[in-house]
C-alpha cells in the first residue's frame, strides 16, 4: 500500500505538529531517560514522512530505507543535545535532508563509476524499463535540477512543506526558498517543453 501524500497536505504538515511538539518533547525526555518505548513512539510518529521524503529524493527504496535508518540512529544518538529551540520535526527533517544529500552524492559518484565501467546504455535501459512514461519524464526532469533547486522543489511542490518549514529545515531565508522554487519551476518548464503535449493532453 502506497504511503499517502499530497501537496495539499501543506497546511497540515509540520506546523500542525505544533500541538504534537509538546508530545514529542515528552517522548524525547523519556527517551533520553532510557525509555526505549518512547524512542519507538517517536519513530512511529515520524518515520513515514522521513521515509517518503528520502524516497522522493533518492528514488530507490533500499536507499530510502538506509537513509531513514541512518537519520534515526543519528537523531537518537544526539537526542540529549536537542535543545528544543526548534521543533523536533524541523531538526529531524534537517538531519534527513542532509543525510539524503550526502547519500546521493556518494551514490552518484558510485553510479558514475558504474556507468563508466558498464556503459551508459545499460543504465538508460534500466530506467526506461523500471518507470512508466510519466514517471520517467518526471524523474528525468526533476533529477536534472541542481541540488539546491531540487530539494526545494521536492519539499514544496511534491511533499507539501511550506516555505517557512523549508527555510527552517535548510537553514536559509524564506525568500531564498521562494526564489529557488521560482528557478526550479523555470528550469522544469524548459525541460518539460518537449513532453508538454503528452502530459497536458493526458
Amino acid at each position, binding site marked *: *500500500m*502506497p*504511503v499517502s*501524500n*499530497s*501537496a495539499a497536505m501543506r497546511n497540515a504538515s509540520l506546523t500542525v505538529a505544533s500541538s504534537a511538539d509538546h508530545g514529542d518533547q515528552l517522548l524525547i525526555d523519556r527517551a533520553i531517560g532510557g525509555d*526505549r518505548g518512547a*524512542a*519507538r513512539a517517536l*519513530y*512511529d510518529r515520524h*518515520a*513515514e514522512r522521513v*521515509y*517518503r521524503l528520502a*524516497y*522522493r529524493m533518492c*528514488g530507490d*527504496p533500499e536507499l*530510502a*530505507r538506509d537513509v*531513514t*535508518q541512518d537519520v*534515526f*540512529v*543519528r537523531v*537518537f*544518538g*544526539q537526542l540529549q*543535545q536537542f*535543545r528544543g*529551540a526548534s521543533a523536533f520535526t524541523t*531538526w529531524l527533517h*534537517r*538531519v534527513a535532508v*542532509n543525510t539524503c544529500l*550526502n547519500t546521493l*552524492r*556518494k551514490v552518484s*559518484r558510485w553510479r558514475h563509476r558504474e556507468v563508466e565501467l558498464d556503459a551508459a546504455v545499460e543504465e538508460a535501459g534500466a530506467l526506461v524499463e523500471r518507470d512508466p512514461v*510519466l*514517471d520517467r519524464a*518526471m*524523474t528525468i526532469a*526533476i533529477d536534472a535540477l541542481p541540488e539546491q533547486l531540487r530539494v526545494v522543489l521536492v519539499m514544496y*511542490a*511534491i*511533499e*507539501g512543506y511550506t516555505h517557512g518549514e523549508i527555510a527552517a529545515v535548510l*537553514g536559509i531565508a524564506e525568500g531564498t526558498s521562494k526564489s529557488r522554487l521560482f528557478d526550479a*519551476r523555470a528550469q*522544469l*518548464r524548459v525541460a*518539460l*517543453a518537449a513532453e*508538454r503535449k503528452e*502530459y*497536458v493532453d493526458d
Partner: protein
Amino acid sequence: MTDEELDRWLARAAREWRLPEAPPFDDMWETIASRAFVSASRRTPGWSVVGIAAAAALVIGVAGGRTWTLRHAARPAPIVAAAPVPAQNILPVATTVQTDNPAHHAVGELLGRTAVLLASLPRDSSAHPLDPQITREGAHLLTTTRLLLDSPVAEQDPRLRNLLEDLELVLAQVARLEARPHHDDIQFIQSAVADHDLVPRLRLAAEDLSTNGF
C-alpha cells in the same frame, strides 16, 4: 508551458511520482535500535575526539617524516607534526610527506591537513562567528580529495578510496558552513566524523603511507 500547466504537472507528480510502497517499518526499527542504543554506550565522548585527532595528526606528521627519512637518509628530515590549533594556524602547520611520488605526497598532505582541520572544527555553535579560514581550507581539501578520488592512487587502493569518499562528504559539509553555523550542522559534521571513524582511519592510512607508501 504555462504556469497553470506546470502546476497541474506538479500536482500530478505529487500524487503519482515516486510514491513509495510502505517499507518494513518494524524491521527498520530493529536495525535502528540495534545501532542507536548499542553504539551509544560505546560512543567516544566528544571532548576526547579533539585529543584523538591531535594524536592522529601527530602520527601522520611523524609517519610522513619517517617515510621521508627512510627514503632520503642523507637529507635532514623536516618532520612537521600537527596538533589542534587555532584556525589561523591551519595552513602553516599542515603535515607534509616527502616522497618521490607526487600522488603519495598529495595523499600525505591531505591526510595531515584534514586531521588538523577536523581537530580545529568547533565542537558547538557559539556566539563567535566561524573563522572563514576553516571553510576555505575545507573547500581546498575537498577539491584535492576529489582530484585524488579520480586518480590512479585511489583506484588502486579500495581502502584509501573509501576513506577519501567519506572525507569528501565531511569536507563538503565543512565547506558549506555558514559564518554563524547552525548547531545542527556542527553536530552533523561531528557525528559523521565519529560514525565513519574518520580519525582512526586517517591514522591507519598514515601508517600505511609510512610503511608501504600505499
